């Protein structure tokens, strides 16, 4: 059972933190996130059922796949996050029910904060955030790494100036502050390049 109108106010709506011509920084409203960890020997059945339910193939290592409102993030070996709009939860649950013997499932929706960064400064921002050569990764990648001492997920498309940062909800205030600091710093020094 779920009630969208009862969610915490702090995650009920998108919040625009910064908007300028070269960068937009938004704290997103709550997302629907389910974690699936496939049981031993159920990989093939899981892949097939997944295709059937969501019409989407599972992403490769460190990648994400997306179709309409569903995004699948590779988290670890045989483990994925399936993300969607929170208000589609009812419909989603029906699909989720078909997986119970194939994978362990947990509802992670309330556990993550999502930040959205868009703009021409994205490249310069990324090189100040993560110690990863993301240019060598695939076009659509999910990078799990340490940011401000916290394990965060960076969802990045090389060809688009958009970036999503996911962090545990208990750290959302601190991560917001840190992201804003990196953005303001990059804006201040960009004229020097």
């Amino acid at each position, binding site marked *: 059972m779920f009630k969208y109108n009862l969610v915490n106010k702090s995650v009920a709506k998108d919040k625009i933190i910064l908007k300028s011509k070269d960068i937009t920084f938004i704290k997103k409203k709550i997302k629907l996130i389910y974690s699936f960890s496939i049981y031993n020997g159920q990989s093939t059945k899981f892949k097939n059922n997944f295709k059937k339910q969501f019409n989407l193939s599972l992403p490769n*290592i460190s990648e994400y796949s997306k179709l309409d409102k569903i995004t699948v993030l590779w988290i*670890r070996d045989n483990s994925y996050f399936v993300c969607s709009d929170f208000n589609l939860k009812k419909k989603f649950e029906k699909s989720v029910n078909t997986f119970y013997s194939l994978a362990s499932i947990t509802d992670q929706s309330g556990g993550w904060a999502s930040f959205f960064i868009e703009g021409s400064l994205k490249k310069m921002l990324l090189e100040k955030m993560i110690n990863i050569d993301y240019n060598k990764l695939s076009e659509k990648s999910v990078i799990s*790494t340490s940011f401000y001492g916290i*394990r965060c997920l960076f969802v990045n498309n090389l060809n688009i100036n958009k970036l999503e940062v996911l962090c545990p909800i208990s750290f959302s205030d601190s991560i917001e502050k840190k992201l804003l600091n990196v953005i303001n710093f990059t804006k201040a020094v960009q004229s020097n390049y």
Partner: protein
Amino acid sequence: MYIEHPLLGSRSIDEFIYYGDASLLKRPVFNQNKILEKFHKYLYLRKNPNGIHSELWFHLYGDRSWLIVERDTKTHEIRNVILANKELG
């Protein structure tokens, strides 16, 4: 320092936690003769090489996988990295 993760590629050492010697993988089987001595040896006695060392690292900030890393303690060169659960499983 960087560790070449078998699935994720080159990752900085800050993403990992060092645990100890890879001999910790060989936990003695329960209900054997002299089990107390075997466990004592398992937990406390190990070699301390000046050279290639097989060790366990936990990828805390990445995919939470356990890795067996072969590292030269003298030159810090990392020779080989494999997933721990693939080694035994």
